[in-house]
């Protein structure tokens, strides 16, 4: 059984297979960073027959499924199941499904996949069960056995789908075109809290729309249309290409040797260069998140001048790191209110509206209240994002407010007037949108000229 865990409580799933009469070996991949979940999975995987892959990075479902499939087939298991972490089997449900897979495997030895049916729960919203809410529904790859024949015919999952969604649709499309049978067990054996992973994680939810849009775009580019999701009996999808990218020279199969770049530079997505480390390219929020993950080891206190899309990333990052303070300053009251309204009520979050023209009464040597406000507090910060008004003034003050190992992240840096930054700080990394800076002990003040 191959399970990818991100944030869902693994207990309901593992409890539901605990009393199985079958010998179950679990291949558990950890993609999330939650310390509590990690400890729980360690406890579970050491107590059962398992192989544990605690990556702690959102490396993509396809990547881990491919690795799990390879490992399972190498281990010579009788059947290999992909099972989502946000479902659990009813009493005896797992054994019923496993028995079905084994018997069907004998009846149709060349089967590609066998999917279960289950009750979809969670919500009826778009990030949820949708119209199948509280209805029995075909589970697709959420609970599915993958046969040897599928690997032989179409190979592995397409890692161009990242981090999740559409990789299963693509797999079914390739099986369909290759004439490999896909089977299903119509008994309702499990309950699936569909898309719970996304709903339960603010940061994932925030990035979900763009990530899904890009996957969707790639799917349409690959097949000429989207796939219908009604189930095996429902009308087929709108795909029109009979070959990937409508290119007869491209085969449906993705062999093991090609899983990292299945279709080459002509067709592979170019925005996934860093997907293995959990980042989508050509996206400012993802770029910021990636930089924070790389350079901000400690994130107890965060400050940002200028609220924007970045605020959600800063807040989500602060939440995952257990930060105690995120102070977000902006000079536009209504705009700041709108940004903050969209965020969860994190106890560490402080939003402050300060007019950009207001003068400070703090007695600080900087007389712009917008800039000087943090110095009033007597607090130092681990991460300071400069993305609003008075950027150079903010950067100057940031040097004083920065913890010794803290970083300043400067947005939209590529302008001649920001060149002096390089003299004030030590440049750690330049990305497309951001400059990551550390305090440079050698340069405490700017040059007089």
């Amino acid at each position, binding site marked *: 059984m191959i399970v990818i865990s991100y944030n869902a409580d693994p207990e309901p799933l593992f409890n539901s297979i*605990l009393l199985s009469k079958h010998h179950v070996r679990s291949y558990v991949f950890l993609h999330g960073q939650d310390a509590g979940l990690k400890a729980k999975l360690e406890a579970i995987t050491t107590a059962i027959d398992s192989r544990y892959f605690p990556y702690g990075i959102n490396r993509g479902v396809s990547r881990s499924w491919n690795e799990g499939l390879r490992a399972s087939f190498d281990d010579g298991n009788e059947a290999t199941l992909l099972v989502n972490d946000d479902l659990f089997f009813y009493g005896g449900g797992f054994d019923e499904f496993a028995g079905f897979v084994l018997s069907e495997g004998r009846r149709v030895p060349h089967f590609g996949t066998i999917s279960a049916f289950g009750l979809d729960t969670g919500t009826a919203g778009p990030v949820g069960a949708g119209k199948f809410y509280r209805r029995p529904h075909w589970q697709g790859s959420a609970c599915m056995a993958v046969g040897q024949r599928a690997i032989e015919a179409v190979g592995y999952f397409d890692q161009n789908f990242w981090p999740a969604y559409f990789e299963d649709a693509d797999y079914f499309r390739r099986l369909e075109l290759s004439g490999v049978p896909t089977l299903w067990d119509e008994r309702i054996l499990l309950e699936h809290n569909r898309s719970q992973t996304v709903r339960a994680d603010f940061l994932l939810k925030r990035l979900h729309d763009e990530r899904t849009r890009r996957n969707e775009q790639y799917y349409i580019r690959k097949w000429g249309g989207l796939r219908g999701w009604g189930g095996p009996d429902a009308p087929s999808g709108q795909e029109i290409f009979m070959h990937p990218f409508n290119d007869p020279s491209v085969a449906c199969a993705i062999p093991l040797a090609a899983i990292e770049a299945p279709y080459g530079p002509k067709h592979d997505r170019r925005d996934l260069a860093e997907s293995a480390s959990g980042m989508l390219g050509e996206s400012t929020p993802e770029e910021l998140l990636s930089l924070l993950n790389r350079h901000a080891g400690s994130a107890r206190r965060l400050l940002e001048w200028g609220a924007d899309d970045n605020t959600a990333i800063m807040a989500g990052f602060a939440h995952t790191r257990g930060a105690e303070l995120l102070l977000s300053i902006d000079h536009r009251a209504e705009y700041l209110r709108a940004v903050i309204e969209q965020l969860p009520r994190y106890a560490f979050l402080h939003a402050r509206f300060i007019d950009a023209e207001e003068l400070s009464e703090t007695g600080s040597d900087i007389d712009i209240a917008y800039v000087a406000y943090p110095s009033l507090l007597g607090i130092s910060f681990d991460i300071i994002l400069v993305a609003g008004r008075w950027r150079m003034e903010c950067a100057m003050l940031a040097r004083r407010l920065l913890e010794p190992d803290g970083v300043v992240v400067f947005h939209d840096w590529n302008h001649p007037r920001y060149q002096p930054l390089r003299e004030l700080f030590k440049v750690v990394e330049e990305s497309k949108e951001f400059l990551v800076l550390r305090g440079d002990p050698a340069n405490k003040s700017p040059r007089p000229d």
Partner: protein
Amino acid sequence: MRDFVRRQLQRVPIIGKTRRAAEQAKAEHDRALAERDRARAAEEAMRAERDVAYEERDRALEERDKALFQIDVPYAQLEDAAAAGRVRMRICPEGGLKGKRTLVIPVQGPIANREIHVTQPFFEAYCRRVDIDLQVIDVSPTVPPSCVKASLRPMVEEYDRFAIAEPHMIVRQGCPDLFAVVPEDRLGAMIEGRWTDRRQRCVELSGLCKFRTPLPAERYVNTDLLVMSHAHLAMLDALMQRPVSSYRLGAQDALNALLYHGDVPVYGLPRDFNWIPYSPSEFDWRWAWIFNMSDSWRSPPTQAYAWKPGRNGNSGYYSRTPLVPRHCRLPSLIEITEQLRGSAVRFVNPAEMSYHGLSARIHLTADDAAVMWWGKSALGKTPPIYGPYLDLPAGRWWVTLLAPDGVTPADPGIIVDVVHDSGRNTVRPPAPIGPRASFEILLDRDVTGTEVRMYSGDRDHTVGCILLKASTDSPMPGEGSSAACDRLDALKNRY
């Protein structure tokens, strides 16, 4: 022709009888409807009459209060009363007093007494973090409100610096050291006139104090949080002994008059150090280091008056009294503190609910807490209390009905249903709330206009507030460490 047939048919004994009975029943029904309408109109008229009577009485009371306003305060008595202040709790990080700093919270009256139980842990955490003393002082009810702060003088006179805060304030984690923010030679306070209109109040105050130059609104401070030093002790003395006006001023006005009259240098604390939600849209603690519920409503109130029980000899009666925010403040304070601890909760206070007819209304308890009250009435199937029309995100929610303390479960026999979208969708049919006064609802999508509706039963009921708490999708984040360890041990044993 048709009439002829009808007349003929009526002559047939059985048909005629049936038809007459039907006509009689219809007439009776119409009479009943007309009677009901007359009763309703009479009830409306009575209610209007009663409201007029109450308004007259309120005006009379207001005039009486204005008259009382002009009576000089007996200051000698105040000095005696000040001595009645009692230290309820003192936390001193390093033991000694001299040369140190303290935060003092005066507690006067039952409302403050309830609120300090909710907010005290936050004051304690703050004082421990910035290493200052905390004193919670019981102030005698005989001390006039304008002298409460002055009455704290004996508790602060040995300190170099001190701050006085009201019990309905919540200090958030990470709040900077107030004494580092405010210069020692100035009195730190939030200048209220910058954020809300205080011009009229300043004009009136200037008149009462006979100021030649009226107090400018941009100098009018909120006195719920004051940061002071030893130099301001004389000002406290003056507040007690040499009032600026011979009129009896409210606590905040008296202090403002004194500050202006004495030309005391004031340091304008940024608003986030004393964030008062002047409008319901500002009810968001994320804007604040120190959140001050003050006399603000959580959301626009549905009711202007409440009913307070009284006794006249052996008989009891209810008197109508204006409903003010502090009657309903406790649930909001609990809500904020719970949210700051990481819970997704919403506490609904009585002023947010709607009341049907005379059989349901807001009562005040003996210690001035607002409660929803409804009697065993003849309303039949109509819920006498309903609301508050909340927009809730999809997911599982616990709904709990609580007593006025915000903790004790309400009567398990109370019958409640939950609907949304103007009652079009029923989430929970009418049923008793059960022994823990709590039940779970499942919202399959984000919903608008969620109502909790309470029904009449075989006895009168009261509810202090309604708690809605989201059941988190993932139990992992925020799980207490000790609980997590216990569960891990159990896991290892189980597998």
